[in-house]
């Protein structure tokens, strides 16, 4: 029998990391470890905080945030044992990953997510990506952007959509709604970071249409989960638009609360123009709540070309929200099941296995 490949993963963060990319890395590496298609995974992170559990077959080296120290640590790890595959979690690290893959005679997988992979990268990054045996993209949009700047065989560039964890399930959100004093209101929810560089997420767009919705007789409230330097400005704008009675900014919340927020909402809305994929759409829909985004970039994938959620043109945001609010809500369980079938852990694991098998096919 052929020996199973050993994988070296160079990532910004994965286990002990926060945010969407860390989550994706955990999902990807976890699915790979579980699949039995690799014999071991060694993760070299730049950031790892707090306590975390590592799945079987996965080890993680200590984190080094400084670039040069990180590069040395990665090289040291690479030469301390044999590797057949190098997984590069971010385009910025692609030159280092390509160098290691070359020196080790290993195959190179480069992962791309969103805006980091859309513009043409530096020459070194470009050459590294073009040398990859496989480039994984979280959405069709990101794939298209990569193929725009990379002269690479298109068959080597695959879409492996984000996934949503099993803990996101439908349930009763009325307690939280009461706690927030929003009984009887139609609750619009956005979950996203609130930094000024994250304005593409579209809170401003939602706030802009709130008065119009109220004027049309929709008894709406806007709940925002997430924190950042732009929060005060957004909160002030929302209060100006529709008053304190209809606005709740909650900051960051724990995972268990987050699930309750998703369940409580009538509509998850994130009219973002810059999503690589938009995992929050999946989380909301997995909790049985309808989701609405713009028909721009990766959001179209998360909303499954409108098979799962709504993808509106920017100019029709208000009208689409209004329409969804008057439509019957539908069964949360049905929506959650459809999301799981399309993007659940099993589907994701199949995608991971397929990608790896393809790589080994050409060995």
């Amino acid at each position, binding site marked *: 029998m052929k020996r199973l490949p050993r994988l070296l993963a160079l990532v910004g963060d994965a286990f002990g990391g926060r945010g969407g990319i860390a989550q994706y890395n955990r999902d990807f590496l976890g699915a790979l470890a579980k699949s039995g298609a690799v014999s071991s995974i060694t993760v070299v992170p730049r950031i790892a905080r707090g306590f975390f559990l590592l799945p079987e077959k996965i080890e993680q080296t200590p984190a080094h945030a400084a670039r040069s120290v990180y590069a040395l640590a990665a090289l040291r790890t690479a030469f301390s044992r044999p590797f057949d595959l190098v997984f590069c979690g971010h385009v910025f690290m692609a030159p280092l990953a390509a160098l290691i893959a070359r020196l080790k005679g290993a195959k190179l997988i480069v992962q791309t997510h969103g805006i980091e992979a859309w513009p043409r990268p530096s020459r070194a990054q470009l050459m590294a990506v073009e040398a990859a045996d496989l480039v994984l993209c979280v959405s069709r949009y990101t794939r298209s952007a990569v*193929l725009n700047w990379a002269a690479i065989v298109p068959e080597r560039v695959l879409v492996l959509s984000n996934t949503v964890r099993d803990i996101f399930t439908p349930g009763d959100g009325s307690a939280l709604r009461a706690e927030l004093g929003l009984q009887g209101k139609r609750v619009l929810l956005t979950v996203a970071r609130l930094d000024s560089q994250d304005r593409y997420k579209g809170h401003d767009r939602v706030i802009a249409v709130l008065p119009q919705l109220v004027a049309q007789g929709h008894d709406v409230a806007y709940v925002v989960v997430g924190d950042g330097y732009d929060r005060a400005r957004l909160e002030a704008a929302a209060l100006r638009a529709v008053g304190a009675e209809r606005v709740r900014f909650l900051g960051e919340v724990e995972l268990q609360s987050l699930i309750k927020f998703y369940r409580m909402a009538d509509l998850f809305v994130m009219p973002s123009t810059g999503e690589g994929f938009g995992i929050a759409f999946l989380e909301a829909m997995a909790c049985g709540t309808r989701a609405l985004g713009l028909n721009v970039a990766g959001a179209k994938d998360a909303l499954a070309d409108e098979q799962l959620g709504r993808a509106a043109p920017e100019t029709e945001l208000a009208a689409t929200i209004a329409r969804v609010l008057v439509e019957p809500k539908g069964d949360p369980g049905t929506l959650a099941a459809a999301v799981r079938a399309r993007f659940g852990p099993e589907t994701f694991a199949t995608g991971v296995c397929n990608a790896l098998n393809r790589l080994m096919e050409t060995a």
Partner: protein
Amino acid sequence: MTSEDGRFVVVFNGEIYNYPQLRAELETDGARFRTTSDTEALLHLYAHYGAEMVHRLRGMFAFAIWDQTRRGLFLARDPYGIKPLYTANDGWTFRFASQVKALLAGGNISRDPEPAGIVGFHLFGSVPEPFTLYRDIRALPAGHTQWVDNAGPREPKPFANLAEVLAKSAANPTPAAELPERVRAGVLDSVSAHLLSDVEVGIFLSAGVDSGAMLGVMRDAGQREIRAITLAFDEFKGTPEDEAPEAARVSAIYGARHIVRRLNAQEFFGDLPTILEAMDQPSIDGVNTWFIAKAAKEAGLKVALSGLGGDELFGGYASFRDLPHWRRWFGPFAAVPGLGFLFRKFIRAVAPNLAVARPKAVGLLELSGSWAGTYLLRRGLFLPHELPMFVDPEIAREGLRRLKPLNRLAATLMPDPRTDGGRVCVLESANYMRNQLLRDADWAGMAHSIEIRVPLVDFTLLATLAPAIALLKEGAGKAALAHAPTTPLPAAALIRAKTGFSVPTGAWMSMAAAKLWGATASLPQYKGLVSRRWSSVVINHIGLTDDPAKVHAA
């Protein structure tokens, strides 16, 4: 068509010429045929041999077979690339069609431009595969198969390679004395195979050797009723350039019914919008094929043989002489680093008029260092250093980076065919003929519902003739072809210089270019410049962007 057990479903564009033999073999092995169609043979072959089936096919084909059990799609395209096959993959959905236009019409495909396709068109006058003008649409390369399943499309795999056939044969060349017999037998075999049809098979007859010899061989193959169609121009009536009288003589020798279709400027300009509309990917040629196919349709034909491929196979182009000479004379200079570049700058400075009138002379020392470079020089519409004058500089730079024209040309010569004749044969067949002549024959024929068959573009024939091609002396190939019919072609056919299609269509194209895009109306002395102007008409018509000037500043 679906297999009897429902497992396989096929869509097929083309013609399998060895269908009767295949059917007999498959039936011996127990296959049960429900129809008399060659399409069904593909289903049985795939069920029996899997992907290896492609080695058993003789013909022009592009097909896809869905395997319900394996939940996957198998695609294949013939060794020469006679039939087109385009694919589009957005990462979620895989689409395929015989035309780029069909894919675009189906919707949901990005129209983002492919700089390599745009640059390729300007370098060669047609879009070199696998590129198209659109980033998300690619050609499945000739002689390749592809597998697609839920893990996505795999990289196309080659199954036939022209260079390899010639490289293998170079070791055992045929003695010159055996050449005529080998050509006679090979061409007779191919023409006979290409006559397999339910309907009448006609022929496009020019005054050249290729179509004339084919007509003679058709007769030898036992074809009784033959209609031969010749395109002639009013402007040439009574001049030596008129092909009609010579074609009429050849037609009479072989007892064919000769139809002369006359074309004038009025009709040319009348059809021009339809021609540009019918073109799938831009091409600077194909106009004459359009009109001869139109004539065939008027005559009520559905199938016609064409002599296409004769120049590639029998050393008919000047490139068979020029390329080895240029390599010999200028190659050593090209080997000196920087000399070619300095030469180009020098000519531009001291003789700017020469640089404009003879743009290629300027590139001679830069490109003649390799076979690929010399070929580009010979066939190129524009040379790489000229691109920024015609194309947005950013598109030119990125297009060259993605296309890698010299690497791509050199790749068609892998493995090395080992003789000059073999190399030129492969370069012409795998580039000019594949990307331009065969594409043109396809869209121009299909637009008139005419199936154009090309017996001289046949992988079996190539294998038969390869040992002879290696050592062909100038003119010997065409002489042998002229003697392929039992009654040989008259000697006059051999002496006659190739009229080609440059005039008067060349003059008309130039006028059209002037009218449509305001280029200077005077007819340039240098023939290549007509094509250059014409290229701007074509690419601007395709309307890649809303702003034509962005793609091509005419």
